[in-house]
């Protein structure tokens, strides 16, 4: 039991980041019915932009909270613009094409973004600067939690709260829900579908930017290829919760984080030393395959869903 609670804490932290990214997948899926394969790369771009802004701001003597706000603001704006352009260039012309077409362009965008990022930032691993003193606190004497981990959970919660408010209480949110329910009917009710789709991409990208900063802060590393695996896992999380369902994405993200970190902690014991924690990435895929085979609609069933 020694590592059990510690792995739960780690799992919740990483899971809340997965949830943020999964929300982006699930919202786009809910509205357009496509998998935005390039979403993981948007997360990476968010982290890299944030890194550049931090390194730039460090040259001046700016109060820490102001610079932090600037970092988030800059990353969110940039990622939103990026996602807006991706949608216009790669997805919009293919809205009536066969299903495989947007998926293939999405792969193209993904490769493109990754290599452009590599050209700009190079192949090296950047250590993500620590903005806060990373103190460690004990919880009931059974597990440790660091300042950064607390901040990650808090920021994720706040971001998700804003998202739920946006979707459920604002007019744009209502337009999004209507569009995902029935595109044609929404159009007839006077909703500008193209605007709704753009907004969906922008909101998703903003969440991705936040997630990118958080994940880079969590591991302390930023790298041009960090988005790919993260994107896959977040997609798994979205499927686990039931793709198209925003509550499901949050649940799926947290659950996947827990499964993964507990799995990585115990895989050696479970397989009698046959597999080590280097099989950690396999766990997410196994979860994905199992969910798709057993319960393709995800944990939060279609009927009680609040599709976005």
């Amino acid at each position: 039991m020694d590592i059990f609670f510690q792995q739960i804490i780690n799992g919740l932290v990483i899971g809340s980041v997965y949830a943020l990214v999964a929300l982006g997948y699930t919202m786009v899926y809910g509205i357009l019915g496509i998998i935005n394969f390039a979403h993981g790369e948007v997360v990476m771009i968010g982290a890299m932009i944030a890194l550049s802004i931090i390194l730039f701001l460090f040259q001046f003597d700016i109060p820490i909270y102001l610079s932090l706000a600037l970092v988030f603001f800059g990353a969110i704006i940039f990622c939103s613009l990026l996602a807006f352009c991706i949608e216009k260039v790669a997805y919009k012309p293919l809205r009536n094409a066969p299903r495989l077409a947007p998926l293939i362009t999405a792969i193209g965008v993904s490769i493109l973004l990754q290599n452009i990022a590599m050209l700009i930032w190079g192949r090296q691993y950047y250590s993500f600067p620590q903005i806060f003193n990373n103190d460690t606190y004990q919880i009931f004497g059974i597990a440790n939690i660091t300042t950064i981990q607390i901040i990650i959970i808090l920021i994720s919660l706040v971001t998700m709260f804003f998202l739920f408010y946006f979707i459920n209480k604002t007019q744009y949110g209502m337009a999004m829900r209507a569009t995902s329910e029935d595109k044609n009917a929404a159009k007839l009710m006077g909703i500008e579908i193209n605007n709704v789709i753009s907004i969906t991409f922008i909101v998703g990208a903003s969440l991705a930017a936040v997630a990118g900063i958080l994940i880079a802060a969590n591991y302390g590393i930023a790298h041009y290829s960090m988005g790919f695996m993260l994107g896959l896992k977040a997609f798994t999380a979205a499927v686990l919760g039931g793709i198209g369902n925003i509550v499901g994405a949050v649940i799926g993200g947290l659950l996947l984080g827990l499964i993964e970190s507990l799995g990585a902690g115990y895989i050696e014991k479970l397989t009698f030393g046959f597999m080590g924690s280097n099989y950690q990435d396999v766990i997410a895929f196994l979860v994905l395959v199992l969910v798709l085979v057993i319960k393709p609609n995800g944990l939060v069933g279609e009927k009680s869903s609040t599709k976005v």
Partner: protein
Amino acid sequence: MISKILPFHKKLKFIHGLFLVIIALTLLPFVIEESFGRSWLRIFDYTLIYVLLALGLNIVVGFAGLLDLGYIAFFAVGAYSWAILASPQFDIHLSFLVILPISFFIAGFFGVLLGAPTLRLRGDYLAIVTLGFGEIIRIFLNNLDHPVNVTNGPVGINMIDPVMIGTFSFNNKIVIFGIQLTNLHFYYYLLVICVILVIIICQRLENSSIGRAWVAIREDEVAAEAMGINTRNVKLLAFAMGASFGGVSGAIFSSFQGFVSPESFILIESIMVLCMVVLGGMGHIYGVVLGAFILVILPEIIRSVAAPIQESIFGVVLIDPESLRMILFGLALILVMLYRPTGLWNKKNV
């Protein structure tokens, strides 16, 4: 295919054409070696391996419309089958006549293994699951060096046997009429024979009831099912078939290269093969062959040309050839999908 209905003079014409093609294909490696050098003959051999791969993936993606993003995993399975069955790793040295069918069936088995639980999924889910499968295979290859050393981990397996016919090894050199024949030539002929066989199989498949069932599923799965097609089995067959071809080309790749390591089977390779199929035109056999040639040979040209050109214009190498290659891949995928969804080589009857 030569048909019995053809009148005699057309038959004759066909046979003439066939002869010319055979002579051209026989002489081609010498022409390449003379005019471009040995390294290009090697590249040409690799191209043929990719042609085999692309033709295999074309069955899955092009004919049956199932987007498989982990196709390189089957290539890996084939390559490691050969590497394990014909190398000092376990000190097993089987003949290629035994290993080729084995890798064919093992890869096909993996295809079924992956396909059976996932094929009732919708297309885009399938894409992600296959992608995950490809990664799982690679992770296993990377880590299966303990507790029992099967794959030798990240280092890979070395000193793999070449193809042997009787006592003649493909790594031997022989001189006929003053022309030296090396392993590059032997593998060229082996690969050309394989490619021609696979093209014939693909063409026969395309016009068979199975091929038509695949196209029906690709166009409209529900309608296909309503017409009495057992979609699950037919899709599984496409998957297994594509996987088996991938396995065979993997086996040849492994013996040709002499070593295998997990690094050859990363996701980008899957995507590159997919690019070949998309670029050439999904479902169009000759288009896919063309796509493979473009995507292997063009980057090689870029590799030799891009750096000097950039140096002469900008004074420094701004974009290294490897990332330039990847950027062009990405752009190609997007642009082809946007402007020429049927591929560069337009097929008429689709």
